[in-house]
């Protein structure tokens, strides 16, 4: 399984694997292992890009000085 890591690290590892695979220096066993890891990293990256939820919060202080989080209304209608 792919360990929980940053998107950047995952993307970098994927890139490194692709480079190694393309070098053609790997044995079949190594290549299969790398390929499996690469597929997992690619999936991890894609999941990462798609699952995070969009949220805009306005953080304000009320009269007593305590913090208040409220959803910011995003009124821009363009994409």
């Amino acid at each position: 399984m792919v360990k929980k890591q940053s998107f950047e690290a995952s993307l970098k590892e994927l890139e490194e694997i692709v480079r190694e695979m393309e070098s053609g220096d790997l044995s079949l066993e190594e290549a299969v292992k790398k390929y499996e890891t690469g597929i997992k990293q690619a999936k991890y990256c894609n999941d990462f890009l798609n699952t995070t939820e969009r949220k805009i919060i306005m953080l304000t202080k009320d009269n007593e000085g305590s913090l208040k989080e409220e959803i910011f209304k995003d009124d821009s209608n363009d994409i």
Partner: protein
Amino acid sequence: MMAEKPTGHIHTVSTLTREIKTLLEETYPFIWVCGEISNYSVPASGHSYFTLKDQQATIQAVMFKNQKLKLRFNLEAGMKVYGLARLSIYEPRGTYQLIFEHIEPEGAGSFQIAFEQLKRKLSDKGYFDPKFKKPIPYLPLNICIITSGTGAALKDIIHISKRRFSNCRLEILPVKVQGDGADIEIINAIHLANQRQKAEVILLARGGGSLEDLSAFNSESVAEAVFQSKIPIITGVGHETDFTIADFVADLRAPTPSAAAELALPDKRILIQQVFEFRKRLDKSMASLISNLRHTRISLLSRLKSPEMMIYTHRLKLEDLELRLNRQIKAYFEYHKEKIQWLSDSLYSKTIKKRISDQQQHVKMLSDKLAHHFYVLFQKNKTKLIELASKLDVLSPLSVLNRGYSISRFVLNKKIITDSAQVKPEDKLETILFKGRLISTVEKIDG
């Protein structure tokens, strides 16, 4: 009515002008003047020519290229300035003008100076040193935005973030971005964001404005807060050309709020494309590896022969070799047989036989010759022997005795006596005669 011709001194234009020149230039060697720039022009010489004016009056002015080099800003028409100048008369035209040594923009000048001073101070403290710049996260999903809650900057940032990477969490800390207390609010917001430890990056933003408008971003206390922040800060203040102190201290400076959002967030479509490309290349290289191995296998297989085939090949080879061996041996025998035949033929040829009989004849002839020579030699020596024997017979003492001679010798030692001196009386002598011997004793020696 005509004026009378004066009787006193009459000036020429030149002398009059020269006197005015001397008078003015000595009276106003260096003067401070303020006014608004108009009719501004810079010909090819690089000097600046303009008119300095106020509501009632105008005066021609020039600032030479060398003096302009020291200015921190560009002169522009409409700009209100004050500066140090000397008054000068241009004799050929009879005009006077101000030659500026130094010009400051009115009002903003002190800000400008303060800005430069603070900038130098913080630079000396190392606040702008690249080694203190924190790396900006590659894909920050929690972004803190410190800006006006109502300004265009916030709208721009939200818009850009939506376009580039819509599913991220934006936390807005609304602050005053200009006027009294703006710097305090900005500092507090930076501290709050650091306390919450939620954001991966802070965007400190504000739309364009005058130097006074941006003063909070040029304050030392804000610079301090930006420098101390544990969370990396991207600034996007004003327009492209505006540089604030906060920009210099920030970990990354964007020219505008929109640009700050762009620098903070990668474009999701590009990332997806990138992952897709990597995935494609991964599949392609795997497929090519497998296809290569398959080709290798086929090629190896084609080179691999069954043992049966090898036996068959060897058998064929063996047969061929056997055949060739037999042929060779046969040829060899044939050849030698022929050679022997030839040699024996030559060995037993008539010439050889004849040579043998010749030799035999020769041997016979030689042996005949030998026998003949031997016989001749024998006869010759036989005759010689007979001859010599008769000679010897003549010389024999016996024959002398025969003729009456005798030989005397001592009985004792058989020594032959040839002289009477040899003999003493009473010696016993033996006398050999032809026939028989006499023994006698010596009586007298007659000598």
